[in-house]
């Protein structure tokens, strides 16, 4: 393989890995928007909660209490973060979002997401302090090499878990009764209600799934991020951009946009400089808003989610 070909393959792999991380964060955002037509400003904090849950599962529960080996401990932490995200989503929906929705107000739930964000951020600051934690994944220590191409086992794990999460979400939405009901609510909440579907329950389920995905994203991002109560904020802006580029509320668009942004970032670093990453990504975002406001996948409400 020539130098150039090896470089292109390597940066493409780097981009796919990075893109998968972005997709994991963006999936929950787009799911909530697709069903509720609402932006969740607290999403970054659910990611951070997931990262901390994974960290403490690895460092306290799995290795010290259960005596698991490092790799099993980290895999367990991904499940724990998924579960914690789901529980937190359930609790916050029941305590904050559902009562506000019942009042029929659209603006208050949106503002409430900002409130929840501030609350979670400060609660984590009080609990964990501001000094960054060092969260190491045992998979990050293993480097896989194929000739001149290399990637860490953590990268491979991120790609595999992301692919599995996307496939599971797709299967859930397409082939299960609850998934079909959820899509019905996304298409037309009132009509779905007339068909015997409980929209409130399905919206709650959407928030739980989105929060669980955010938690899982946190577990995958934990060993990459500088883990502090503000960790999620560093990726959320990019995730919002990906949701917009992909087409608000469109899952396929979000996945394609996430991978695309990851690859563009990797090649921007290679040929233009890492300092220009945000410039390039947000020029793409603006170009997309101007030229194709519906995003990569044109918005057809019935096909979203």
């Amino acid at each position, binding site marked *: 393989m020539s*130098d150039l070909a090896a*470089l292109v393959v*390597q*940066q493409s792999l*780097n*981009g796919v*890995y*990075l893109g998968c*991380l972005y997709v994991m964060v963006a999936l929950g955002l787009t799911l909530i928007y697709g069903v509720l037509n609402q932006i969740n400003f607290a999403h970054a904090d659910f990611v951070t909660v997931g990262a901390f849950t994974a960290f403490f599962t690895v460092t306290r529960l799995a290795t010290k209490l259960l005596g698991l080996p490092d790799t099993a401990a980290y895999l367990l932490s991904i499940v724990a973060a998924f579960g914690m995200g789901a529980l937190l989503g359930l609790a916050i929906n029941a305590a904050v979002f559902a009562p506000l929705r019942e009042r029929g107000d659209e603006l208050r739930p949106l503002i409430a997401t900002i409130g929840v964000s501030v609350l979670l951020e400060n609660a984590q*600051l009080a609990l964990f*302090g*501001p*000094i*960054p934690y*060092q969260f*190491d994944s045992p998979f*990050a*220590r293993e*480097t896989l090499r194929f000739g001149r191409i*290399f*990637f*860490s086992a953590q*990268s491979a794990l991120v790609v595999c878990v992301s692919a599995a999460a996307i496939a599971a979400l797709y299967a859930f939405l397409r082939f299960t009764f609850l998934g079909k009901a959820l899509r019905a609510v996304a298409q037309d909440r009132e009509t779905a209600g007339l068909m015997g579907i409980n929209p409130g329950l399905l919206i709650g389920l959407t928030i739980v799934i989105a929060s669980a995905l955010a938690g899982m994203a946190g577990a995958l*991002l934990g060993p*990459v*991020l*500088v883990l*502090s109560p*503000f960790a999620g904020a*560093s*990726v959320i*802006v990019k995730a919002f951009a990906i949701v917009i580029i992909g087409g608000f509320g469109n899952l396929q668009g979000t996945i394609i946009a996430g991978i695309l942004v990851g690859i563009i*970032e*990797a090649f921007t*670093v*290679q040929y233009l*400089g*890492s*300092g220009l*990453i*945000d410039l390039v990504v947000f020029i793409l975002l603006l170009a997309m808003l101007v030229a194709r406001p519906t995003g990569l996948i044109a918005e057809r409400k019935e096909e979203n989610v």
Partner: protein
Amino acid sequence: MKLASRLALAAAIVLASAAAAAQERVVRIGVAMPISGPGSYFGVMDKEGIELALEQLKGTVNGYKLQVQYEDSACSPLQATNVVKRLLDQFKPHIVIGEECSDASLAIAPILNEAKVVQLNVGSVTMKLTESGYKYTFRIFPNAEQQSAPLVKVAHDVLKARTAVILHEKTNAGNDNAEGFKKPFEASGGKVLATIDFGRDVNDFTAIATRIASLGKVDVLPTFALEGQQVRLSQALAQAKVVKGGGGSGVQMGSIWLPYGYDQKAGEASVGYVRIVQFDPTERRKMVQDFVSAFKAKYGQDKVPTHINAHAYDAILLIAEAVRRGAHDSESIRDAFSKFKDVEVTTGRITFDPKGQNADLSVVHFVETQKDLSWKALSWQ
């Protein structure tokens, strides 16, 4: 009767004045540090150092109480500006310690100088802070030039480096350090293959490491970033086999920015990392060992103080020394600081040059990370 009343009133006034004067025997120290946001670990460590120093001094020097007010300036120029204005309006400090981040330090410098209140900086590197003609600004932290020049010398003379890739965060501090390395390195015949900057929100450095690996043989990689990013960067460079920690030949070089403990966090990737340090908890100087012991006694035996703890601790020692020499307000503190010569603190000896920059770098030295992740002190400075 009338006379007695007048005498009583006069006595009361004298007593009240005396009491007021006694109450006024206070040196007010404002502390503008990041307590929230990504740089908040600075504020936490700064507070630990300050609290320890105050405890040891029992809060009083030469009959003057050292009164401290902490404010969260968040490493942000805007918030730092607001915080300092509030401090000036309400607390009326004689001196302000802060900020850690260069951008925020630069933002508050003109305000404090306009108000003729001393600014004591303990953690910013940007050259502009002490090169802008401020009369009330003093800095004990080595500036960018003081940190970069020894790195160039060691890279060129000791490591025989002829090629370099400079990595730095996109801030005043990072830019100044990078420039401080680039110019003299090129002047000495070295070639800078690339200067790679990145925002503080960058988390994944795999693409950057891949790019560096594609540039050919790199002898040294001077790196100027906060600890969290440095750890990830080192690991990515090791994975790409660029640096010694990953089996490559490049030597990653770091500045005083990195707190003690980086090596343990980066793990094997940090092996062979050469860095310049000012505060070294293993230094045998009595003052350093007393500080380390006291710090551990207060905060836990497993907690080793970092340079951030030490610099904040030193800031209080310096103010105390100024008060011991008769200073009690902004003007007299400024005068006392200007006359400091070889005042011993944990991070060396302080002698401020006419621009307010500490000129003494006698304890600055190099260390190299060993396979067991310990430091080996090198006598290259």
